[in-house]
C-alpha cells in the first residue's frame, strides 16, 4: 500500500445560517494516495467544493470544522494546514475569467505569487512565468503576460491558472470544476494538460466535477459524494462496471441512456410542415466591426415532432429562438407559419400560436407576481376579461403540468426549480399553442429533476399534439428527445437531419468533436 498523501477521518463541517446551523459535510472519510488522480464526483450542493475549501483551510466565515482530523503524510495537520496553502497545495477554480484580478496585468500577478512563494527577484519571476506559459502551450508569453484577463479567452486563462498553480511546485493540486465553464472541445485539452503535467511533476490531483465521463477517462479512482457524504469510493473501472451504492447507479444509468439507441419513434410522423425558417441573417455591431450572430439559417419544423438545435454558447441559438418568437428583429430572412388549411404567413410580430420556455427557472417568472397571475398573463394580454373563465383555465393548465392548485397563490421564490419550470410550461400552454420554443429548458436543473421535466414534456407533446423546437448545448438530452437535430456553429447550420444519422456518422468535423465530448464510444 503506497503511503497516503492525505487522510481525512470522519470530517464534519457546519455552516451557521441565520436561524439554524446546517451540516454541509458529515463524517467524510477519504484517503488520497501519492501521485494518483482522484475524481470527486457529485452534483451541485453535494458539498464537494466545501470539501476542497476545507483542505486549504478557507472555509467561509460562518463555516467551521466541527469534528474529524486530517493527516498529511503522517503528521496531523488539522490545525496547521493553512501553512501548506500555496506551498504544498495549489488550486484551480471553475471560472478562469474571474480567477485573476481584472484590473492588473497577468504578468504582474504571476510575479507577485512567485515572489511570495520563492522570494524571486522580478526578473527571475518573470522568466519563470514565461517558461511555465510555454509548458502550458501558450504562444508568445511576453505578449500574453502584458495583457489583462478580460482580453483573453476562457481556455487561455485556465491554462494560465494551471501554469500558476504548478509554478509553486505543489505536492497536491485541487481542480475544483476546472473544466465545467469551458466549451466542449477546450474541456478535453485542459484535462489533457492537467494529466500530462501531473505525470511529469508527479503531483497528486483531486479532480472535483459533476462530469462522470471526463472523470472516467482520466481518474485512477473515483469518490462519489451526495448530500455531504462519500457514498462510494473505488477504482474507476469497478465504479463503472459494478456500482454498489444506489446513487452511483442512478448517475451511471443516466449516462447509459444517453449513449444507447434509446430513441425510437414508433410510427413515422407524416410529413406535415408547421413552420419554415428561410435564410435568417442577424448582425450585431460591436465597436464598429459587425459580428454575424446568424447567417443563412434555414430549417423546417414538422407538426408533432421535436426538432433539436445543438450549439454551444455564442453559437447564436438563443438569438434564433428570439427571432422565431419575434421578440428580436431579424435583418433578413422569413419565419413562415403554416395554418391547418395549408395557407402560410410570414410572421413579423409575436404570435399566440407559439409558446416559449427559457432556461433560468427564476428569471422566467416575475418575482412580484403570484403563480396564478403569471399563468394568467397570456390570457389577459390576448384579451380575456371574465374572471371566472380565467380562473378555471388556469386551474386546468396547472393540473396538466401536475402541480397542485394550492401553490397558485405563492410567489416564485417559494417554489423549487422543477416547480418553477413547470409553471413556465403551464404559462406557455395556457393559449394552446401549436409550437413550443424550448431554449435550454432543463440545463439549470439537477439530473433527477431534469428527467421529470423531460418526461412531462414528452407526455404533453403526445396529449396536446404539440411541436417542440428544443434548443440545447447538451447533446445527451437532445439524443434522448429530438426526432431531428440541426447543428449550429458560429451562426451557421452546418448539418441537420435524423438524430441517429447525425450521432453515428456525422459529416462535419466539429460535430464529430461534439459527439466525442458527450459519448465515450470505446467502452
Amino acid at each position, binding site marked *: 500500500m503506497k503511503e497516503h498523501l492525505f487522510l481525512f477521518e470522519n470530517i464534519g463541517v457546519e455552516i451557521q445560517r441565520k436561524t439554524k446551523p446546517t451540516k454541509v459535510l458529515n463524517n467524510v472519510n477519504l484517503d488520497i494516495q501519492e501521485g494518483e488522480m482522484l475524481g470527486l464526483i457529485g452534483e451541485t450542493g453535494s458539498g464537494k467544493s466545501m470539501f476542497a475549501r476545507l483542505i486549504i483551510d478557507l472555509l467561509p466565515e460562518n463555516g467551521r470544522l466541527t469534528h474529524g482530523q486530517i493527516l498529511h503524510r503522517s503528521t496531523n495537520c488539522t490545525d496547521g494546514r493553512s501553512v501548506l496553502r500555496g506551498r504544498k497545495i495549489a488550486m484551480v477554480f471553475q471560472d478562469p475569467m474571474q480567477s485573476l484580478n481584472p484590473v492588473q496585468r497577468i504578468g504582474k500577478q504571476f510575479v507577485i505569487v512567485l515572489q511570495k512563494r520563492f522570494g524571486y527577484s522580478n526578473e527571475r519571476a518573470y522568466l519563470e512565468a514565461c517558461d511555465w506559459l510555454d509548458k502550458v502551450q501558450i504562444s508568445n508569453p511576453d505578449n500574453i503576460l502584458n495583457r489583462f484577463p478580460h482580453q483573453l479567452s476562457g481556455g487561455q486563462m485556465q491554462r494560465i491558472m494551471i501554469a500558476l498553480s504548478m509554478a509553486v511546485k505543489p505536492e497536491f493540486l485541487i481542480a475544483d470544476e476546472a473544466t465545467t465553464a469551458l466549451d466542449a472541445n477546450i474541456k478535453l485539452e485542459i484535462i489533457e494538460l492537467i494529466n500530462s503535467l501531473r505525470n511529469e511533476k508527479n503531483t497528486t490531483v483531486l479532480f472535483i466535477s459533476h462530469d462522470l465521463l471526463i472523470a472516467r477517462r482520466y481518474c485512477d479512482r473515483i469518490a462519489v459524494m451526495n448530500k455531504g457524504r462519500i457514498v462510494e469510493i473505488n477504482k474507476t473501472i469497478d465504479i463503472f462496471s459494478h456500482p454498489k451504492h444506489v446513487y452511483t447507479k442512478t448517475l451511471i444509468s443516466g449516462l447509459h441512456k444517453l449513449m444507447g439507441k434509446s430513441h425510437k419513434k414508433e410510427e413515422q410522423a407524416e410529413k406535415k410542415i408547421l413552420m419554415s425558417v428561410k435564410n435568417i441573417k442577424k448582425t450585431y455591431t460591436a465597436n464598429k466591426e459587425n459580428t454575424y450572430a446568424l447567417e443563412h439559417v434555414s430549417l423546417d419544423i414538422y407538426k408533432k415532432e421535436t426538432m433539436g438545435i445543438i450549439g454551444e454558447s455564442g453559437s447564436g441559438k438563443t438569438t434564433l429562438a428570439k427571432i422565431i418568437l419575434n*421578440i428580436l428583429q431579424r435583418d433578413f430572412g422569413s419565419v413562415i407559419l403554416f395554418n391547418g388549411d395549408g395557407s402560410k404567413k410570414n410572421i413579423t*410580430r409575436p404570435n399566440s400560436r407559439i409558446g*416559449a420556455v*427559457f432556461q433560468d427557472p427564476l428569471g422566467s417568472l416575475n418575482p*412580484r407576481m403570484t403563480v396564478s397571475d403569471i399563468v394568467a398573463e397570456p390570457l389577459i*394580454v390576448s384579451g380575456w376579461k371574465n374572471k371566472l373563465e380565467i380562473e378555471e383555465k388556469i386551474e386546468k393548465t396547472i393540473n396538466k403540468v401536475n402541480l397542485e392548485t394550492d401553490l397558485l397563490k405563492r410567489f416564485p421564490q417559494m417554489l423549487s426549480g422543477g416547480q418553477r419550470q413547470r409553471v413556465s410550461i403551464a404559462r406557455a400552454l395556457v393559449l394552446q399553442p401549436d409550437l413550443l420554443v424550448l431554449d435550454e429548458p432543463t440545463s439549470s436543473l439537477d439530473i433527477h429533476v431534469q428527467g421529470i421535466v423531460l418526461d412531462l414534456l414528452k407526455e404533453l407533446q403526445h396529449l396536446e399534439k404539440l411541436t417542440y423546437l428544443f434548443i440545447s448545448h447538451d447533446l445527451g438530452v437532445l439524443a434522448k428527445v429530438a426526432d431531428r437535430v440541426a447543428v449550429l456553429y458560429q451562426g451557421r447550420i452546418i448539418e441537420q437531419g435524423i438524430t441517429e444519422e447525425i450521432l453515428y456518422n456525422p459529416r462535419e468535423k466539429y460535430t464529430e468533436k461534439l459527439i466525442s465530448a458527450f459519448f465515450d464510444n470505446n467502452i
Partner: protein
Amino acid sequence: MHMALQSILSRKNAMIPGVFLLLLLFSSVLIPYVSPYAEDIRGAVHFEAGNQGPSLQHWFGTDAAGRDIFTLTIRAGLSSLKVALGVVILAVLLGVPLGLLAGTIGRWVDEIIMRITDGFLAFPPLILPLTITAVLGPSLNNVIIGIAVSWFPWYVRIARSQALVIRSMDYVLLSKSMGSGNIHVMKKHILPNSLSPIIVQASIDAGYAILISAGLSFIGLGAQPPEAEWGLLITQSRAQFLNHWWVVTFPGLFIVGTVLSFNMIGDELRNVLNPKLADQS
C-alpha cells in the same frame, strides 16, 4: 411587498428610528394642545422670561423673545416632516415616470431625457434649490418645490437603470413574446420590480431634504418667522449663540436625530429589499 415590511420591522435598527419618527410626528401634532406655552408657536412674546437656560419650567430654555424652545422645537418637527414627504413624493412623481419611459422605450426618448437630467445633475447640490427658492419667493412650500425640482433627475436615473436591467429579464422577453405592449410591460413588470431601489433612495433623500430645507431657512429663503422650523430657530439664535448655547443646540439635535432615523431606515430597507445583500437565511 408585505413580506418585506414584516421583516424590516423585525430588524432592530429599523425599529428605533421608526419609533422615533412616529413619536416626533405625534408629539408635533399634539404639542399645541399639551404645552403650557402653546401660543409661543403663533409668535407670542414674553420678554421678561427671555434668555433663560434649560430649567424645569422650560426644558430647553427660552430664546431672546422669551419663547419656549422645547415647544417650538417639537412643533418644528411637523414642518420638517412635511418638507421631507413633500420633496420625496414630488421628486418620485416627476422622476420615476420619465425614467421608466427613458428606460423602456429607449432610442431618442432616452437620449433627450438623459441629456436634460445630466444638465440638472451638473449643478452642485445646493445651488439649484437656492436659486429656485429665491425665484419663487421665500416660503417652506417653495422650498419643497425648489428641492424636488433639483432632485427629480436622481429618480429618473434610478428608474431608467432599473428599467434597462429588467427590460432584458427573461420574464419580460416572455411577456413580449405573448404580444404585450410597452404600457403593459411597464405597469406589470418594470414598475413593481424597480420599486425597491426607489423606496431606498426616497427614504434617504427624505432625511437629506430636511438638511437642505434647514439650510435654506438658515439663509432666510425657507420658513419665515414666526413659523416653527428648525433651520429658522437656529438662524434666529445666531446673534448670541455663543453665550446662549441652548437656543441653537436643541433644534440642531432634533435635525440630526430625524435625518439619522431616515438614513438608518433607508439602509435597512436596502438590505431587506435588495436580494443580493439580504443574507440567504
